[in-house]
């Protein structure tokens, strides 16, 4: 059968085989032991043509209910935002889409410059001077940050808040287990959810490599005493690491401006679709401190000139940190990253600009506040659970006896709404609670629909 992606067919193939000096293609596999050669075809469905595969896939995917057709209030690590058409269109340029890692700088200036611009705009957002060209996602960026703190300080303890996504915590533990880091969780203040500073002070010591907080936290509230936390960490010589939803940085102070040494986060909301959770876009930034820069994981794009010094251009730099040169002594094993998502983020940020980005953050926060206030007014619901300021995510507790949060969400679904994420598995102590997210894509009608449905359900 002639396959449309394989041009060397019949006659040409025969010609090539003659050149190579073989009669049968099997001669090229003569070094494969006979007993393990696959003597049958793979058990896979027969090949499809384009119209068939399109129909097949549409039929499978039609069983999904995308949030473009019914409102979703799910966030919790990836967040629904509008992905502008021009962002999607430009990253589908096949020169970007079908290129490899830009090892050959001379023919890769396009993606290199776009990545340099991504790094630069991330630096502006987080208030630091250095950002890498991406990690897989927020969770793996956190794992790498903990390892980097340990390498820089020669210490083994890494402190995190108790209120953190359980998945992220699991990734952190897996990333740091090889280096024998000890992950220590600090309890929250009961009312505010924020880090208990008394307990933090007690826990930091000479072996503390890093102190990590999330701002906004996993459950949506803000850590307000960030200057104090930075001071507590720095006093014992630990590095201060902050995790962010970058959209929040349109209105919230840049972590670099309150003492963060390393910032990690999830860049998906910057022009990338939710995609059932992946591809995502790990953000990783640090201070302009040589000790930190030399320990960075992942690819870095730098600006330099041609050898004659006449023209500025871009190239991957400090590759001696990386696995393909340093092997087992590399700062990380990461090779393929999320470059195209980073290019999308660059296009998105350049399009919003400073006022657009602030407007976006304000809109998310205002819309969330509108939803939060509305829900809280409903008898039998409490939103938020924590007495702290919130950005665009918040907790909702169902206090109607006999009505579980799962049931509440199932009922919302019947009203055509994807409700929040149930937190019972992660934080059973919070009771019948879920985590909701509101962004600029939510209209007043969407939120009013939620409020109306919610009040009907708890009635």
């Amino acid at each position, binding site marked *: 059968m002639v396959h449309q992606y394989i041009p060397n067919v019949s006659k040409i193939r025969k010609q090539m085989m003659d050149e190579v000096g073989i009669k049968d293609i099997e001669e090229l596999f003569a070094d494969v032991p006979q007993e393990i050669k696959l003597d049958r075809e793979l058990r896979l469905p027969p090949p499809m043509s384009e119209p068939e595969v399109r129909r097949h*896939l549409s039929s499978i995917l039609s069983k999904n209910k995308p949030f473009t057709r019914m409102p979703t209030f799910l966030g919790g690590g990836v967040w629904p935002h509008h992905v502008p058409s021009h962002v999607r269109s430009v990253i589908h340029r096949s020169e970007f889409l079908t290129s490899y890692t830009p090892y050959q700088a001379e023919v890769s*200036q396009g993606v290199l410059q776009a990545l340099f611009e991504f790094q630069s705009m991330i630096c502006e957002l987080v208030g630091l001077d250095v950002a890498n060209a991406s990690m897989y996602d927020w969770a793996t960026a956190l794992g790498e940050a903990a390892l980097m703190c340990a390498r820089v300080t020669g210490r083994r303890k890494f402190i995190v808040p108790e209120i953190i996504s359980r998945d992220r915590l699991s990734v952190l533990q*897996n990333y740091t287990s090889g280096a024998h880091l000890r992950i220590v969780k600090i309890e929250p203040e009961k009312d505010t959810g924020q880090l208990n500073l008394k307990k933090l002070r007690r826990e930091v010591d000479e072996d503390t490599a890093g102190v990590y907080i999330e701002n906004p936290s996993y459950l949506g509230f803000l850590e307000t005493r960030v200057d104090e936390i930075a001071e507590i960490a720095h006093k014992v010589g630990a590095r201060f690491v902050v995790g962010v939803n970058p959209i929040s940085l349109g209105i919230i102070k840049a972590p670099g401006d309150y003492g963060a040494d390393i910032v990690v986060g999830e860049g998906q909301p910057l022009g990338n679709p939710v995609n059932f959770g992946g591809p995502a876009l790990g953000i990783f930034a640090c201070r302009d401190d040589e000790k930190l820069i030399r320990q960075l994981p992942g690819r870095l794009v730098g600006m330099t000139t041609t050898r004659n010094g006449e023209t500025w251009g871009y190239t991957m730099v400090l590759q001696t940190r990386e696995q393909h040169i340093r092997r087992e002594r590399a700062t990380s094993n990461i090779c*393929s990253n999320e470059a195209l998502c980073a*290019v999308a983020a660059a296009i998105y940020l350049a399009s919003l600009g400073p006022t657009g980005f602030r407007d976006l953050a304000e809109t998310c926060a205002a819309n969330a506040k509108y939803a939060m206030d509305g829900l809280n007014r409903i008898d039998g619901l409490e939103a938020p659970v924590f007495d702290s300021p919130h950005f665009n995510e918040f907790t909702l507790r169902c206090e109607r006896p006999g009505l579980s949060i799962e049931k509440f969400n199932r009922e919302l679904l019947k009203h055509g709404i994807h409700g929040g994420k149930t937190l019972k598995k992660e934080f059973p102590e919070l009771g019948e609670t879920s985590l909701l997210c509101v962004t600029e894509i939510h209209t007043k009608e969407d939120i009013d629909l939620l409020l109306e449905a919610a009040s009907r359900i708890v009635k």
Partner: protein
Amino acid sequence: MNMSYHQARWARGDRLEPLVFELSSKDRKGIRLPQKLPARPEIPDELIRDSLELPELSEPEVVRHYTRLSQMNYGVDLVFYPIGSCTMKYNPKICDELAALEEAAFIHPDQDEDTVQGALELMYRLEHFLSEIGGVSRVCLHPSAGAHGELLGMLLTRAYHSSRGEDRSDVIIPDSAHGTNFASGAMAGFHVVIIPSNNRGRVDLEALKAAVSDRTAALMLTNPNTLGLFEDEILEIAEVVHEAGGLLYYDGANMNGVLGKVRPGDMGFDIVHFNLHKTFSTPHGGGGPGAGPVGVVQKLEKFLPVPTVEYDRKRRRYYLDYDRPESVGKIRSFYGNFGVLVKAYVYIMMMGPAGLREVGETAVLNANYVMRKMADVRGFEVKFNGPCKHEVVFSAEPLKRETGVTARDVAKRLLDYGMHAPTYYFPPIVPEALMVEPTETETKEELDRFVLAMRAIAEEARSDPEKLRRAPTRTAIERLDEVKASREPILSWRMYKNRAKL
């Protein structure tokens, strides 16, 4: 050779296309947002941001800027891209189109399972496809890239040995392996033991026997290896490792060379990673996103990350299973690079079993054809005899001896001929290495053109070596000062402005 080629070059003064910050003009905006709702968020003053420096551009300016940048970038759609071990084959457009459908791109991982049955079904089916292709019992789709898969493989290795009450410290890796193998082993806390290759360019069985012990946790192996050679003693290798109680890890970067012909599971591997962005043709995107699913034999299934995707036959419903007490947990958020998984799924459906075998056979034929044609080109040699698989490693040592021109110079000059460079100086065991992987999607004419270009370059090395040291000259920019770039790194616009002030 036709030399009328020149890559696009958009330049202004001492810059190529200016930086997006330099194109900024006050009050321009490229995205209009919906009206916000009447509510006042209560952000405390001390947490309010006072300034943010981002460029200000309209949508047409943004699109023109990044479109110009894209023109200064080689992609598979534009040029022959024979970069070894990277399998830069043609990426079918239908895959991208279907992955971008609303029902795939705009679903949230925490949606009620009833509203994502399609996504779960696709993952369930893809897992079964890959299990069959790799000859393994189950596959975890979570890893975001090959190296990520390796890390998971190492975590599974540790979990397996500790479940048997054993504390095994060593991971054995041949000196020809990809750099990620060493780094992944070390990252998971293993002691990396490097063994030399033999004079046939394959694992030295005696060296392996000497290296294994009751400390051996695993052997990480690429097969075909990075020289493009099949490890023909694979069954003996597997026996040595298994007998010592170790596991066999398969680096799937080179799977294109054996696709449909022989399966890693049948070779004796216990853990196998797949590079969907190589073998299964999902586009590489300038460095990612990729996907590196990991398959395992039955005894390792219970350690796989949560959640797995299961099918409830009675209720005819797919679901996510978190109830796996011996699981290693998570290695990333959610369930993997779903957008990439969709593309690989479509690719497999388009190819079918015979098509995939044809991929393997043609990739190997193309590489052998290039090897054969290059045998007549003076200046390059192949260090190891016999047929190669999907890629072939040439040494430019003879050319260097004769002319002083290096493998790098040759590779850089190839860019001038409108082709991407092969991988060079890898694997490190071959001096002046040029690693060429043509893939199955190139025409014979293109392969001939490549050989002609290599011949022309070898001639240029003799007649005008300076030309090669200056190459490339027909690209958007000449060679950059990499030493300066790393000695005084400028990693952002901020750093550039700070440096400029000094």
